[in-house]
């Protein structure tokens, strides 16, 4: 009891905050899930082999949604170019203890679908995650939150040192943020001007956020 008292006092003194993350009101942050590869196929189709036919379109494939907090060692700007440049000069590293891997389903066999309709379908799947905890105590320093979808299983991800770039199916990330000071929900998005953004996906999935051809 005597030992518990200081702990209780400390806990009583801790400020508890809640911060939500989202992909935009209409899923505008989901561009990273709508990328096409060099052959013009949507990367979501990579889930096709493991796809679960539920009686016809829309088909869903098994994916793993991986959330990571990435320590940037400072506070760079939010634009992709700024982030990539920063991380080429600084040590950007995913904080391994913050990783959560959640199995889920995402649309597959979607090449040729209407982009906005596909965005809505992806959003529909991600809405199922609403309320799911990303972390109970966010890092105290400026970090970015990265949400990555891949065809790899959570077990395979835990065993590997890096993601299999051929199985990446989506990515989104936040601006560099100090979550302890965040006064509103944090937006997750993917900055690209074209649908052919598989290369950006690889950079997004890289452990150090650096581009590797």
């Amino acid at each position: 009891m005597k030992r518990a008292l200081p702990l209780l006092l400390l806990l009583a003194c801790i400020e508890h905050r809640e911060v939500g993350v989202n992909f935009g009101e209409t899923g505008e942050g989901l561009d990273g899930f709508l990328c096409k590869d060099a052959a013009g196929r949507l990367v979501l189709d990579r889930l096709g082999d493991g796809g679960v036919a539920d009686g016809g379109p829309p088909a869903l494939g098994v994916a793993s949604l991986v959330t990571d907090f990435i320590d940037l060692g400072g506070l760079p700007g939010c634009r992709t170019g700024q982030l990539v440049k920063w991380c080429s000069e600084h040590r950007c590293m995913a904080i391994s203890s913050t990783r959560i891997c959640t199995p889920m389903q995402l649309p597959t066999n979607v090449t040729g679908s209407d982009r906005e309709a596909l965005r809505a379908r992806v959003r529909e799947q991600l809405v199922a995650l609403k309320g799911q905890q990303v972390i109970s105590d966010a890092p105290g320093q400026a970090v970015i939150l990265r949400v990555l979808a891949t065809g790899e299983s959570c077990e395979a991800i835990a065993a590997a040192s890096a993601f299999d770039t051929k199985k990446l199916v989506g990515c989104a990330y936040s601006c560099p943020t100090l979550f302890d000071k965040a006064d509103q929900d944090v937006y997750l998005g993917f900055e690209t001007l074209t649908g052919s953004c598989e290369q950006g996906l690889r950079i997004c999935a890289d452990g150090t956020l650096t581009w590797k051809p």
Partner: protein
Amino acid sequence: MTLAVVLVATLAAESPRPSISVVVRGAELSQQALDAAAPAALLRKVPLPNAAEPRGAPPALPQERIAAARKAYVNADFAQCLEQVADDAALTAALGQQDRANAARVLLWRVACNVGAGKLEPARRSAAQLAAFSLQAPAEVGSVSPEVEAVIARAYQEAGGMRAVPLEVSGTADAAVELDGRPTGCTTPCTLEVLEGSHVVRLLADGHEAVVKLLRVSAPRAALEVELPTAAPELAAAQWSARYRAAPDADGASSVRLLSTALRSARLVMLNVEQASGGRLGAVLAIDGAVTARAERSGDPATELPGLLNDLLVRGQLIEASVPLYRRPLFWVAIAASVAAIAAGVTTFFVLRPVETRVSFQ
């Protein structure tokens, strides 16, 4: 924490503990009890002196020489007789030792042998000396010639007709004065009435060595001033043991002064502990031999001892009275520092308050 550090620093800055010798009379009191009772002072328990008076000097006038003088007188060997009793210094010393009987015998044989040798003037001077010292004629006067008796009788008669001369004795204060081997009841400074002629004055005082002086008194007045040498600690210890060890006034000023000398103590506390009748404690503090403070308490000595010693040492200005904490400037400095530290701590806490942010999908 800050308060504690400042208070410790305050205590550490206190003046060093005075070293004090303590003698305990009555019930036993351990050194540990003294240490615990007066942490502000360094009390050192010392035993009370229990020394015997130094053995007295051998008689200044040995019986053998007086007997030899008598034998020489009987044998009509007056020169030999006078040789045996001619030592004036020995006569003075004998009176200093209050040996009036032998002094009287020496003077008797001086008178007798001078008369026998036909030296009437020296015989009369010796007879006058006998009378001036107010010595009683010894029993041996019956064995001398009637002529000798007549000389002595005349000297006493002449002395009876002489006027007394005032003799002022001064010097070391409160010294007891003995005249011609007899106590006078006079303590210096005082005036004695004495007959003209030679006299032996001895002065004695506690804490001093005794001094014997031979002086010639002549009208109209005479004076003697003597500063007694300070007694060595051993002599003082013997004097204290003889006069005060069992005396009820052992805590008096004279006793404590003498004890300070005997114990070579610049600071001395005498504790009187009585266990009977519910207990009583008395204490006296002497600095350089002079009593500077007294304190007394009734009750259990073990309980009352700390308070008694504190009273005594504060009155004697050996330690400072304990000042309430709130009246010490450093206390308020410590309080201010503590408040500042707490304020800084609280501010820091709220600025750097730990935050736990839960992140979830919306």
